C-alpha cells in the first residue's frame, strides 16, 4: 500500500491547518466567470457511485472553468454494473488518461483504496459515513464571508450526525480552526462517542441549549427511512429538533443557518427558516464552485 499522490484530498482530518487556510485563500481568488485556464488539457474523471446534484455539478463547473476536460463515470451504465472492482475501475480510468479522479462512493474508505494504488491525485467527494471534505471547505468559506474568524465562534450542528460525512468533516475543520462545536440530536443520531471525534466538541440532546448564543446553525438532512427503524419517530423529531423561526430566535441575532442539502422542507427546517434572511443555504451551493476550483488547482499542482 502506497501513500496517496500529492494533491489528493481524502479528508479534512489529515490536512494541516496551513493547507486548510491555503485552500480557503486560494478559493477567494477563484472566479468561475473570469478564470484562467490553469488546467487546460487536464482530464478529470468524476467517478460517482452515488446520486449527487450539488457536488457533481459544481465539481464539473469548477473543472471546466479552469479549462479541464471532464469525464463523467456513473456506477450505472458502466462496467461497475458488470462487477468490476473499485480498484480495477481506478486502474482503467488511469489508463484512459485521467490526471485526477473525483470520487463519491457509498463505502467509507473507498477513495483511500484507489488513492493508495494510483499515482494520480484522488479527491474524495463523499465516502459513506466518513468524510465530505469539499463540503466542509465550502462551509468554512461561507462562514468566513459572514464572520470574522473561527476563533471562539459557536457552531451548533443539529441532526443525524452518526450517518453524516458532512458532520464528520465539519467537526474536524471547525475544531481545528478554533470554533466551539455543539452536536445536537437524539441518542440514535448523536451517540456520546461523537464528542471524541475532535477537541472542543460537545453533545447535547436539547436544541435550546445548542442554539443559545450560537453564531452558526448547521442543519443536516434527516433521512425518513433511517427514522423508521429507530425509537424516535418522525413527528417526535420534528417536535424536538426542527428549526423553526421561533427557535432560531434563541441563537445570536446575526446567526447564519446552513444546510449541505438536499433539504427536506417541513422536516429538519421550516420554509420560513429556509427562505429567511439568516439562511445561507443557496450561497453555500454558490460557494461550492470556487472552493472546488481551488481543490482541483491544488490537486494538479496549479495552486499559484
Amino acid at each position, binding site marked *: 500500500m502506497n501513500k496517496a499522490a500529492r494533491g489528493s484530498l481524502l479528508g479534512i482530518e489529515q490536512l494541516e491547518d496551513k493547507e486548510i487556510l491555503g485552500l480557503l485563500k486560494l478559493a477567494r481568488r477563484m472566479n468561475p466567470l473570469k478564470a484562467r485556464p490553469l488546467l487546460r488539457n487536464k482530464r478529470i474523471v468524476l467517478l460517482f457511485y452515488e446520486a449527487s446534484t450539488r457536488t457533481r455539478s459544481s465539481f464539473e463547473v469548477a473543472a471546466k472553468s479552469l479549462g479541464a476536460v471532464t469525464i463523467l463515470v456513473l456506477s450505472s451504465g458502466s462496467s461497475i454494473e458488470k462487477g468490476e*472492482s*473499485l480498484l480495477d475501475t481506478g486502474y482503467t480510468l488511469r489508463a484512459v488518461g485521467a490526471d485526477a479522479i473525483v470520487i463519491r*462512493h457509498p*463505502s*467509507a474508505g*473507498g477513495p483511500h*483504496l484507489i488513492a493508495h*494504488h494510483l499515482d494520480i491525485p484522488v479527491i474524495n467527494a463523499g465516502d459513506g*459515513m466518513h468524510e465530505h471534505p469539499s463540503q466542509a471547505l465550502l462551509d468554512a468559506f461561507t462562514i468566513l464571508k459572514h464572520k470574522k474568524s473561527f476563533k471562539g465562534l459557536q457552531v451548533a450542528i443539529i441532526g443525524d450526525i452518526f450517518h453524516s460525512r458532512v458532520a464528520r468533516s465539519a467537526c474536524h475543520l471547525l475544531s481545528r480552526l478554533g470554533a466551539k462545536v455543539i452536536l445536537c440530536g437524539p441518542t440514535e443520531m448523536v451517540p456520546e462517542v461523537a464528542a471524541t*471525534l475532535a477537541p472542543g466538541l460537545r453533545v447535547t440532546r436539547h436544541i435550546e441549549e445548542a442554539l443559545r448564543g450560537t453564531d452558526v446553525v448547521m442543519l443536516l438532512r434527516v433521512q425518513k427511512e433511517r427514522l423508521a427503524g429507530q425509537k424516535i419517530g418522525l413527528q417526535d423529531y420534528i417536535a424536538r429538533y426542527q428549526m423553526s423561526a421561533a427557535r432560531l430566535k434563541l441563537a445570536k441575532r446575526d446567526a447564519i443557518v446552513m444546510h449541505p442539502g438536499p433539504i427536506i422542507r417541513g422536516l429538519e427546517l421550516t420554509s420560513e427558516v429556509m427562505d429567511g434572511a439568516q439562511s445561507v443555504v443557496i450561497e453555500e451551493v454558490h460557494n461550492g464552485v470556487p472552493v472546488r476550483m481551488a481543490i482541483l488547482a491544488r490537486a494538479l499542482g496549479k495552486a499559484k
Partner: protein
Amino acid sequence: MLSAKNQRREIPSLLIKGGHLIDPAEKINAPMDVLLREGRVAEIALPNKMRGSAEEKLDARGLIVAPGFIDLHVHLREPGQSYKETIATGTAAAAAGGFTSVCTMPNTAPVVDTDEWVAWLRSPERGAVVNVFPIAAATRSSRGAALTDFAALQRAGAVAVTDDGKPILDDEVMRTALRLGAELNLTVVQHAEDTRLTEGCSMHEGPTSFRLGLHGMSAAAEASVVDRDVNLAQQIRESRLHVAHLSTSEALKAVRRGKRAKARVTCRVTCEITPHHFTLLDEDVGEYNTNFKMNPPLRSATDREAILVALADGTVDAIATDHAPHALHEKQVEFERAAFGITGLETALALAITKLHREHKIPLTRIVELFTAGPASVFDLRSRGSLARGNFADVTVFDPRKRWTFEAAKSRSLSHNTPFDGWQLTGKVVTTIVGGKIAYRAD
C-alpha cells in the same frame, strides 16, 4: 504398504541435546536432554545422564525445548477453497510457526458436517506435515438448526464441534449441543457473536469506528452470547464449552464465572485468545487497512488490558491463531466489503514472546503452557501437550532471544493477509518435530 508400526520404526531415533526443557504439564523448567524413538518420547534425562543412545542428534544449546505447540483454531480452507490455502501449505506454515498439531475449522465449502469429510481431512493424501485434528460442524451446513451426528463425527476423528464463523444463537439448539457433547465428552466451540446486533459491521464499535464512519460491533454482542452459553453449560452436568477467539473484557467476566470452583463441578468452560487480540487495538486499522479486519474485531485498550491480565492469571486456556488466509482480491477492496480474517501461524510464538514475555513480563513457562498443556486439555488430546515418557514425539525447539523480521512474502501460507508484515520480533522457531520426524528446520 508399510504398517503404521513399521513406518515408525523407519524414523531414526533422535536425541535433543543441550537444550532447556520447559514442560509445564510435567512441571519441568530445567536443562534436560530428550530422546525420541519410534514416534514417542523414550527418555528425559539431565544433561549427559541419558542412558539410551540415538541414531541422530539435535544440538539445542541455548534453545528452549518444549512439547509441540497445539493450535486450537485454524482455517486451512480445504475442501473447496484451495485458492486461499491447502492442508499442505497451511500445515507447512504451522510447522514453521512451531505448531505440531492444528485443529481445523469446518466452515469450508462444503461445510465439514459428515464423518466422510472428517475422514477426508485426515487422509494422508492431503499432504499434511503436522497433525490435523478436524473440528466438525455442530449443525448441518452450520445453519444453526439441525444438529449433526456428533457420535459419528467423533468416531471419524473430530475432536470438537462448532459452527465457527457463525454462532449457534438458538437457545434450544445450543442446549442440546452441550447435552450431546456432555454425553460424548465432546467440546462445543462457540464463535460468540450475536449476529442480530452486528449486521453490516466491519470493526469494533468505539471512537475509531465512529471516526472512520464504519458501523461497529459492540462488545456486548460478544459478551451476551458467552453469558448465555455459560448459563446453559452450568445447567448441564459434564458439559464442555469452549469460547473461541474471545476478545472483550465483558466476555472474560462470563468465562470467569463459568470457571469458579462451584461451577466446575458440573461443567467445563474454557477459552482461547488470539495473538492479534493481545497485540493490536481497533485504532491500528489506520486508513482502512483490510489486513486489520477480522472477526471478532480488534478491540479497545481496556479489552486488551483485561486480556493481558487473563493470559497471566490462568483464566485463558490457550493461545490460538484463528489463522484465516484470504486471497489478495478478497482483501484489496473497500473495507466494508473485505473478507474477515488474517493469517497467524508463523507469527504467534514471536508475538507471544515479544508482547507477553518481554513487554508484559509473563513468564516463558506460562507462555509455553498456553501453546501446549493448555490447548491439549481443552479438547482432551491424549498423549500430547507434554513430553512425558511415552507421549507422542511432538517437539518444538525455539530461540527465545533471536531477533528477526517477519516478511509476509516469505510465508509458507498460500495467502499473505497479515498485519505483521515487516514487524521486528523476538523469538523464533528453530526446529519442529512431529511424531519424531523433523517437519521444519530454520535456515
